[in-house]
């Protein structure tokens, strides 16, 4: 892909501390994410993966450093973050569907409220997206009636309904029963193949290896090593990465 050269997201010297600097969740992280790239972030628990991902759309406010999205510095106070979040879809470990709304309403709420689409257009889009993930008959159900795998697939298309430039995933399969992991990963794989830019925090090493264009290993708030899946999994350099892989593989 010729567009890969220009980064869609650019993180520069990102620092995030908690408790007045006591906890360094992110310690001087820099990374570029190219258009159409699928980046898998791996690392032990507490290494800062979620903090990194959630900083990208400013769900976590950086302590210092900058995040550029489509060339705009999001950490600049004068930037309307809501506008940019519309273009950054996010999928959470616990789905976070709105329980008081039907599936269709979950999907159409934001595009309609933000005047990106009329209700009719959004409804049509929701139906199309639901068909695509094989759940066309769930439009009028409430989330409580769905399985975990169904909820997560719907959470994914809820984000897609905003027609985002990039999708952020924070351990999208960790809260699922094992038999439902596959159906969610399949939707993500399809997205990747369609050229969606994706940043995926995951414990699914198989997915990282198979779908990732690049794998980023984090430890203690730092990006310790990154490379192609085969570089990371078959030829790890850093002892902490070797150690980590020995435990998870």
């Amino acid at each position, binding site marked *: 892909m010729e567009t890969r050269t220009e980064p869609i997201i650019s993180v520069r010297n990102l620092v995030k501390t908690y408790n007045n600097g006591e906890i360094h969740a992110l310690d001087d992280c820099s990374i570029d994410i190219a258009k159409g790239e699928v980046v898998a972030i791996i690392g032990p628990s507490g290494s800062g993966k979620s903090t990194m991902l959630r900083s990208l*759309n400013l*769900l976590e406010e950086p302590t210092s450093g900058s995040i550029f999205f489509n060339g705009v510095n999001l950490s600049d106070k004068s930037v309307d973050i*809501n*506008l*940019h*979040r*519309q273009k*950054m*879809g*996010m999928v*959470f470990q*616990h789905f*976070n*569907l*709105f*329980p*008081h709304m039907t599936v269709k309403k979950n999907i159409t*709420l*934001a595009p309609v*409220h*933000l005047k990106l689409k009329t209700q009719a257009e959004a409804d049509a889009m929701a139906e199309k997206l639901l068909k695509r993930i094989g759940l066309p008959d769930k439009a009028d159900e409430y*989330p*409580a*009636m769905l399985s975990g795998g169904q909820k997560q697939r719907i*959470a994914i298309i*809820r*984000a897609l309904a*905003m027609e985002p430039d990039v999708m*952020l995933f924070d351990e999208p399969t960790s809260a699922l029963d094992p038999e439902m992991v596959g159906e969610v990963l399949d939707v993500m794989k399809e997205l990747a193949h369609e050229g969606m830019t994706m940043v995926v925090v995951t414990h699914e090493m198989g997915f990282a290896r198979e779908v990732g264009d690049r794998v980023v290993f984090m430890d203690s708030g730092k990006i310790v090593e990154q490379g192609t899946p085969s570089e990371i999994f078959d030829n790890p350099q850093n002892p902490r990465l070797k150690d980590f892989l020995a435990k998870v593989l």
Partner: protein
Amino acid sequence: MWWSNLFKDMSPASFFNFSFLPKYGQLFVQGVEYTLLLAVVSVALAVIPALVLALMRLSKNKFIKGIAGAYIAVFRSTPLLVQLSIIYFGLFGVIQIPRITILGFVDLSRFIPGVVALALNSSAYVAEIFRGGILAVDIGQTEAARSLGLNKFACMRFVVLPQAIKNVLPAIANEIITMVKESSICSMLGMAELMFGAKAAASATYITLAPYTLAALIYFCINYPASKGIEAIERRMRRGDKN
């Protein structure tokens, strides 16, 4: 019957001498209506200010937060009768309400100050109910809404508040029950609610106890079934929430 003597020998001071009823029963009927009106209207009026107070308390701005906190602290830490008196004689000493009677027995010049005082008091309590309800909504809901690009207000309005309000409805219904009881204090300022009716019947007939027994019975018969009903609804809501 063993109790027939009891009734024959009933003294004027006994609990169940309801001989005032034919003549003064109407006072109680009107009193109940007045009481319910006071309770329902004051809590209804409290809802919007309470919501505003709750949102102010949840604000990041220390000044806004402080104002709401002070309001809530003042109204929760002083007696209702004192608040009522200050508002009645102070605020409505300045603002004159014309003596218009509605429904045949509700004198607006007394009712409005009473309702305002109860509503101001109630908003402090309902604000805390709302705040708890808002905080009880999973933070992930806010994160999901904000990640879609909804701003703070849209997130509150479409995602957080509908869930919070559903959760606090039973507590707000309970606040109405509290107000049914607390509004008895309005009798001190001549509002013709249930307690006032009982007082009037007592002083007109020199039957000093039974009118109050009757008032107690009426309060109980309103509040007990109502609170049981709310509990049942709450239980059903909780069952429906499991997903």
